[in-house]
């Protein structure tokens, strides 16, 4: 079910090195040719093409499913997941041609595995009320290649083995943090992103986000506290030996007006030496930090500009030092629509050409995929279904 084969080759320079050292390097040279993709434990990569073969949009609400678009043209196809009582994910992970997403405890605790090429979707039942947070392909675990799912309310990680034929088996890593929200595999260990929040009740943040290292062999665990990183939802991007852990911050929504308690952060972590390399605090007054790694090697962080109008903004970071890349006084990426207004991108990421692909939801939650050239000018706008919440480039 999980396609580990490489995607079809394109004219992209073949910069998919097996060496972890290269993978861990932040190649953040401006515009064009360099491509950096997620590198995994066994040295294989999940490459993003310079020119994407396609764009996948997750319709997380209304009619959940995936909308597939090409890099040109206006056509799209839809793969239905199911009603919102069965699917409520706000994001997904793309592993080559496989999409992984999960439903929370409010939608039945399900793992969705979609085969992009075949246009099929399969559901796996996870423990009731376990409140899955994120799913990711884990290569090279003690149980081989499995899908890891962080179970927020169960304090454990589900390891889902989906053979090509036969029954699915689910095993667990117990005591995996207070609220595990993400999981990945690196350096012979399973790493758990623990939001350290009371996810079982109201997601109150208890303390700083933690990385918990659980070795594939042996019993000694390590916990790395990411000071200043606070959120009930934290996730990681892994580049070989480096992880970028995003934490959206904390806000008080119980009072009016809403108040910001802690800003969002992106923390750079050296997984081999188990230490923090640096942290970027998001611009003053902003809330949230949902990070994607662009095909151009930069990090693209989607967040809300403030807690009043909740305007969507995108912050572009250098991967090597987390410096903000902006064209002016504003810390935000300048993305200008054809009408001259700033784009309200709920989710954005760049391809290998530095073009930024972004999702904009308009009236009626009608979703548009809008593409901007490296200068930030709109060059493409195409209908992309309804209720789009996340996107990925293939």
């Amino acid at each position: 079910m999980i396609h580990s084969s490489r995607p079809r080759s394109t004219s992209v320079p073949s910069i998919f090195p097996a060496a972890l050292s290269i993978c861990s390097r932040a190649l953040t040279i401006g515009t064009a040719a360099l491509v950096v993709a997620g590198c995994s434990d066994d040295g294989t990569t999940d490459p993003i093409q310079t020119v994407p073969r396609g764009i996948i949009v997750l319709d997380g609400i209304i009619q959940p499913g995936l909308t597939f678009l090409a890099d040109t043209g206006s056509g799209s196809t839809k793969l239905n997941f199911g009603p919102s009582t069965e699917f409520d994910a706000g994001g997904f992970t793309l592993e080559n041609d496989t999409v992984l997403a999960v439903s929370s405890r409010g939608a039945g605790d399900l793992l969705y595995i979609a085969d992009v090429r075949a246009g099929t979707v399969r559901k796996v039942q996870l423990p009731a009320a376990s409140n899955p947070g994120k799913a990711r392909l884990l290569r090279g675990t003690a149980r081989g290649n499995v899908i890891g799912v962080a179970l927020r309310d169960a304090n454990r990680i589900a390891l889902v083995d989906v053979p090509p034929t036969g029954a699915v088996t689910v095993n667990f890593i117990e005591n995996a943090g207070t609220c595990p929200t993400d999981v990945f595999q690196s350096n012979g260990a399973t790493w758990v992103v623990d939001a350290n929040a009371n996810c079982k009740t109201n997601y109150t943040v208890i303390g700083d986000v933690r990385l918990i290292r659980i070795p594939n062999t042996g019993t000694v665990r390590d916990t790395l506290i990411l000071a200043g990183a606070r959120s009930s939802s934290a996730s990681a991007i892994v580049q070989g030996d480096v992880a970028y852990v995003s934490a959206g911050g904390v806000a008080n929504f119980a009072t009016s007006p809403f108040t910001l308690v802690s800003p969002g952060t992106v923390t750079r972590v050296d997984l081999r030496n188990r230490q923090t390399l640096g942290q970027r605090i998001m611009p003053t007054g902003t809330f949230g930090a949902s990070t994607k790694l662009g095909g151009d090697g930069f990090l693209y962080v989607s967040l809300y500009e403030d807690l009043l109008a909740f305007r969507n903004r995108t912050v572009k970071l250098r991967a090597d030092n987390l410096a903000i890349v902006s064209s002016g006084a504003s810390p935000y990426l300048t993305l200008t629509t054809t009408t001259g207004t700033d784009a309200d991108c709920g989710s954005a990421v760049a391809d290998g050409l530095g073009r930024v692909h972004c999702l904009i939801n308009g009236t009626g939650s009608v979703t548009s995929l809008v593409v901007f050239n490296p200068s930030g000018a709109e060059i493409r706008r195409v209908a992309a279904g309804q209720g789009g919440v996340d996107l990925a480039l293939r």
Partner: protein
Amino acid sequence: MTDAIAFALLLAAGADSSTVCVRDASTGGALLDAQAVDSTGRSVLLAAECNRVSTGRWTIRRLGYEPRRVELSSQGGTVLVVLQRLSVGVAMLDSVRVLAGAAGADAGGVARTTVTTGVEQARERGIASVNGLIASMPYAAPRSARGESGLSLRGARREGVVITLDGLPLNDPATGTADVSDIPLVMLGSATVALGSDPMGAGPGASGGVLALHSATGRVLTLRGGAFGERVAEGGYEGTAGGARLAAALSYRQAENDFTFDNDAGASPDGSPTRERRVNNDERRGAVTLSAAGARAQALLLLSVGDRGMVGAANVRAYDADRSRTDRLLLRGQVAVGTATLVAGVRALQLGYRDPTRPVLDATSRAGAIDVEGRTSLFGLDARAGGGADRVTATGGIEQSRGRGFASLARTVGLAGARVEIGGRVDAVGSAGMQPSFNAAVHRRFEAGAKRSVGVGARVAQAIRVPSLYDLYFSSPQRLSVRALRPERVLLDAETNLSLSLPTTLGAMDLQGSLVARNTRDAIIWFPGNFGWSPANVGMERLRGGEARAALASPRSTLSVWTTAYHTNLSVGGLRIPTPYVARFAGGGSLLVHVAGSSGGAILRFNGRRPYTAGPRNVAFELPAVTLLDLSLSRRVHVGGSSALVALSLDNATGVRWQSVRGFPSPGRALAITLTLSPRFTP
């Protein structure tokens, strides 16, 4: 006939008394609770449809109607007294209790599709709840989940339907919807479905139609036991004191609702649905009602409490311990002052949500509303004016309130044999500004020999639905100021109808059909916004369709069939979105046969495919078509002065596994037995 009292000596009776039957001039329906007052001021309450009254000169009075003098002769007999409403031409469903005939009575002479069903008839079918009563009614499209119910009429969203109890809206000002699950059946005499916008009668919110519940408590005791732990005990008592009719009713019902269902939302190892049993789906409800009705004043008090499990969707176990409690207070008063009628009402609704596993998530919301209204006849016009206020508070600092007021003028005239209604109304609600609306209708009935007639009618109206208080709150993410969410406006609600009455060898047949069109601007829809769900005014929503119904009534049986066809379409952002849960085609039928004190009944309901999302039409996001059959057998026996009705009902007789709300399975086959004792009422 409709403009004056009609006296008709129909048959001989006692020598010193006559039987007086009081009817409404507009509808011909029976009027209860009228009062006969003689020259000395002595009054007799005419509580029933027909009452024995001693001979002499009497003035027949009833709240909301012009009084009429009548002289009852010593020859006895039955006298039919037709009373004219004070408010000429306005559909005062609130003050008119129309008891249905065996087939369900239509309000005649108006260019609007209305159907009334009597509770007594429903009891013969083994129906013992308001939800069951509504589900049995033509044109009504109810749906329920988690123990609460919603109703769609004429392709409208449920917040586009106003549900009234004796004219007082039951819609929650917070959500704009009405859940009548806690209204006990024992306090009702009948229910009327009236399709189409009703700006004059119900005011804002009634863009799809009105369900009018009419209270009527008699001496009755109902006991019921049924599948899935259903237990019902309801009792009503009425008597007279000081010339007024006093009535009280108590109701208690409980159900475990632990039926089995096929869980196809999960992921079983072999991919097939798993057979499971609903848990935390129980409900317990209690209610008490008190009412007093005299010739010039009446009052109604309703107190109800309900506790139910808040079971989640089919595969969701996170809510298996959650509970909800609903408390309702409703007080309504009406008094005649000179030629005017004053109506006042107070409503309070408290919803408590409790999550034992996560007490921090416990929440309580309280909604309250006050209504005051005056009605009178002014220069031949029916004039109404009123005002009120709504307030909502809820855990989390939610606090919203607003005032409202309205004034309306209406006139009904006869013109070339036709009945012409025209009226205008202006509402001012909170910050929504002045919102005018109007209604114009013409109806003509052509007699074609004995018992044959053809009616044609047309009606156009405008209506508004102001944002609910939750709409306003959640449309403004910062919660500091209310965003300019505009009222939803029905620019045009047009209807033409044709009705035909004719005798057949099987009985009297009534045929009725309507073609309808409705354009709604700025529909208030809850689409996901950039921060959670938020409502917005979006696009233009259009409805085109039609309704048809045929009823055949004979002394021993009644047969009714109906159908609706609606095409709804909301245009927004290049998408064309059908209205959720509105089937393109729906229909149903009912049969009730009386044989030697027994009756057998069947109700068939068909619902076509229904979209359940606010997205484009997509078969993957539609509920499948469903056909449901309810069967009943009943027998009435008379013991002394009382009667006993035993009804055996089999709901969903074919055991269809279906959902009225996506994700929430409905019960399968359900057997119940109901005993209704009705002591004879002697005024």
